[in-house]
């Protein structure tokens, strides 16, 4: 073990049926450092943390802790806690209706007796020492979210922890609250606690962290000192694209660029929803394919959801062909010819128990109206047409959609929207979790539709996919539009540098 290390994980392997979630990952945390764990979705961050906290058992590898000669065995969250590894999750896992002190000591009192007085006194001491603005007897729910989070941390710290894991701790906090949290983190750092920080916001990572470990596809990319890793490098390492790769060749057969002269069909001004994104401007031309790009949690989905009225729109105007239209809820958008394929297919897309036929017909039926149902015959005609057109693999039109594979489910949802003959199609991660063949099919389809005059917004975590299909990219960072790329600038390098941003000064 290294001299100052409090935690060392070596050669960690973990597989799930069909997935190798972690392959030979090393991770070292030193005393008094804040260490960011970075990676895109599916990189293995959460698996690594769950192995560390005893939620998952590792397949292979060793974990060493300071003060233990041999490798330690962590078989349950209880083990992890006893070894001084504490976790604070994004969602508060405390009991809001109990007092602060009760929350700090719950499940930790020995025996049956509880001495409330001494417990409250102890709690107050800890709170004062950490400068947390809460009283031991206060009900937890009456504290702000930030303070609740701090109480959770205080609870963790008091359990004599050496390793503190903060999993997306700032997501629900405003800027002042984040500042308070960071102060607490620095305080803990000075006491020698090692902190693992999992967070998607680059600005925050660069503000608080000392080191960064990057994971990608279950493998370790590397461990870096923060000052030695410019943001652009970090982004390129996370995305797995070489920053200096200029020899990129575009596949022209797959690329279609919208006509420059055409009119803006939809236009939005300072659009705002209740999903917590900054107001943004947006437009799309007829026959254009554009895209939103940015890291996970940057607000890509929230932006298109605001356009479709999927989240509650709280401000801004939308114009169609120059005329203002009101889009408050999805049906309004649908009536204006907008279609939206949501990011989370399972939660927002498929209607699992219903048949392929019903899933295909659903949106058009809603547009047609409650009192004009399609006959069974018409429904079968629609369904059969699109099953053939999109080559959907299903036993029959009556098969429940949930028994189809992911790619075919996605095609059904696509069919549902194509059937409404939209003027503007929004595709949020249409290619996630589906096989390569279907991915290419969907990309081709997007370009074909655009060439027929449909406007398309395409969102994907895979930037090369976006480069291939989109003619213009809107770049988002930390829930804010930070740039737009088009024409000759459309390459990985430019995207990554825009995503990474210049520095701290351009954030608010």
């Amino acid at each position, binding site marked *: 073990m290294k001299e100052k290390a409090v935690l060392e994980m070596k050669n960690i392997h973990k597989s799930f049926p069909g997935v190798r979630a972690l392959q030979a990952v090393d991770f070292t945390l030193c005393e008094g450092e804040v260490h960011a764990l970075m990676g895109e979705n599916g990189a293995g961050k959460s698996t690594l943390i769950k192995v560390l906290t005893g939620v998952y058992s590792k397949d292979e590898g060793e974990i060493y802790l300071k003060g233990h000669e041999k490798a330690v065995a962590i078989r349950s969250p209880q083990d992890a806690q006893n070894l001084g590894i504490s976790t604070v999750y994004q969602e508060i896992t405390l009991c809001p209706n109990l007092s602060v002190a009760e929350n700090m000591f719950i499940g930790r009192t020995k025996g049956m007796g509880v001495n409330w007085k001494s417990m409250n006194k102890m709690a107050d001491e800890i709170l004062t020492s950490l400068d947390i603005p809460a009283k031991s007897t206060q009900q937890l729910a009456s504290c702000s979210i930030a303070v609740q989070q701090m109480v959770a941390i205080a609870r963790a710290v008091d359990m004599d922890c050496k390793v503190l894991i903060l999993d997306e701790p700032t997501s629900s906090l405003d800027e002042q609250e984040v500042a308070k949290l960071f102060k607490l983190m620095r305080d803990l750092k000075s006491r020698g606690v090692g902190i693992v920080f999992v967070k998607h916001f680059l600005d925050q990572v660069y503000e608080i962290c000392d080191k960064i470990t990057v994971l990608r596809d279950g493998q370790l990319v590397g461990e870096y000192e923060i000052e030695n890793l410019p943001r652009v490098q970090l982004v390129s390492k996370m995305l797995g694209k070489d920053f200096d790769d200029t020899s990129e060749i575009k596949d022209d057969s797959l690329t279609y660029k919208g006509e420059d002269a055409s009119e803006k069909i939809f236009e939005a001004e300072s659009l705002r929803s209740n999903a917590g994104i900054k107001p943004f401007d947006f437009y799309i031309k007829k026959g254009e394919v554009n895209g939103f790009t940015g890291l996970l949690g940057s607000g890509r989905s929230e932006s298109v959801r605001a356009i*479709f009225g999927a989240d509650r729109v709280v401000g801004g105007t939308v114009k169609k062909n120059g005329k203002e239209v009101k889009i408050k*809820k*999805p*049906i309004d958008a649908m009536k204006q010819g907008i279609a939206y394929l949501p990011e989370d297919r399972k939660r927002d897309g498929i209607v699992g*128990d219903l048949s392929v036929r*019903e899933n295909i017909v659903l*949106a058009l039926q809603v547009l047609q109206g409650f009192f004009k149902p399609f006959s069974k015959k018409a429904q079968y005609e629609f369904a059969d047409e699109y099953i053939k057109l999109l080559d959907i693999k299903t*036993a029959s039109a009556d098969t429940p959609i949930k028994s189809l594979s992911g790619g075919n489910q996605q095609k059904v949802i696509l069919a549902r929207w194509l059937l409404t003959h939209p003027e503007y199609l929004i595709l949020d991660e249409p290619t996630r979790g589906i096989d390569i063949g279907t991915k290419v099919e969907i990309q081709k389809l997007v370009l074909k539709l655009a060439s027929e005059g449909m406007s398309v917004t395409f969102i994907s975590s895979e930037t090369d996919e976006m480069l291939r299909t989109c003619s213009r990219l809107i770049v988002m960072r930390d829930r804010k539009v930070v740039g737009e790329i088009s024409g000759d600038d459309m390459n990985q390098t430019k995207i990554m540098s825009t995503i990474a941003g210049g520095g701290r000064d351009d954030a608010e």
Partner: protein
Amino acid sequence: MTQNKVEKKTTASGLFGRLFRHQLFIPIAALLLLVIFNLIMDPAFFAIRMEINNAGNNVLLGSLVTILDSGSELAILAIGMTLVTSACGGQDISVGANIAIAGSVMLRIICGEDARAEEVSVGIVIVAFLVAALVAMLFGAFNGLLVAHFNIQPMVATLILYTAGRHIAAWVNNNTLPKINDTSFGYIGGYIPGIPIPTPIFIAIACMALIALVLKFTALGLYTQAIGVNENSSRLNGINPKAIKILSFVILGLCVAVAAFIKVGRNTTINYSGVAKDIEMDAILAVALGGNALGGGRFNMGASILGAYVIQFLTTTLYACNVESSELPAYKAVVVIILVIMSAPVVRDKLKDVGKKLKSKKNVEVKEVG
């Protein structure tokens, strides 16, 4: 790939699998069981005879007629309960109380202040029904609002009306028990002169026809099921889940009013404290017996209605066997237990396995013989 898989499944579990999986399997199996039981106990149970009643009409009598007759209210309520269950993933337990209210409103209008009506005109009966229907639908909308808008669990939300409903019903008629003495009013719950079939059967058939038309000529079925399966996704497809949920409760309210109409017709009065007591449990049981998921989503209206008549079959059978009426719930509880176990995924898989084994065994036997 998927295609192959599905085909394989069908052939593997064969007829048994398809049988077990079919939604009508449970209610039909239960019905057959009851029929066989009665054949063994007393074949006369199935006898239907024609007699002349004291009004001088030919009327059909017999247990089977009684089942169809007495099951009318339950079948009508099962229609509304199925929709509520599908859309909201929960059940309305205030149906009985709401029947008490609707029935009391009818009596209040027909009988007026002095709580007696010697002669009743068709007009006032229609007015009374319409007003009662409006009241029942309003209470339904109230339940629906609590469920759709405030996101309260349906059973919890309807607990309010369940608790308060019979008090409201008592208040409607000042705690008196009004009575209609016009014999022609009794036609609603009995026989219309010249027709040997009890009137409630016709009312139930009319309701079934109506819901069939509604399901055919509106997108209610698709919307309701879509919301029940995936509310998020339905909203993103432009459906207004709140409106549909409230609508399902309003339709149940209408069903309640019709059921109350039959109840008042049968007795020419009702006792607000006891009328239709626990009928909501039977209606829920009918939905479950019809193989519909009580957690919402897909539904089969026909199966629910069949379920309602199976429950009535059970009740009538038990009466014929001299089972104390206070013990009826115990027998129904047994049915519920069997149902719940049958519909548990673990048991369903087991059944499929058994089906497979039976089939492979048969094949083996055939081979051996051959």
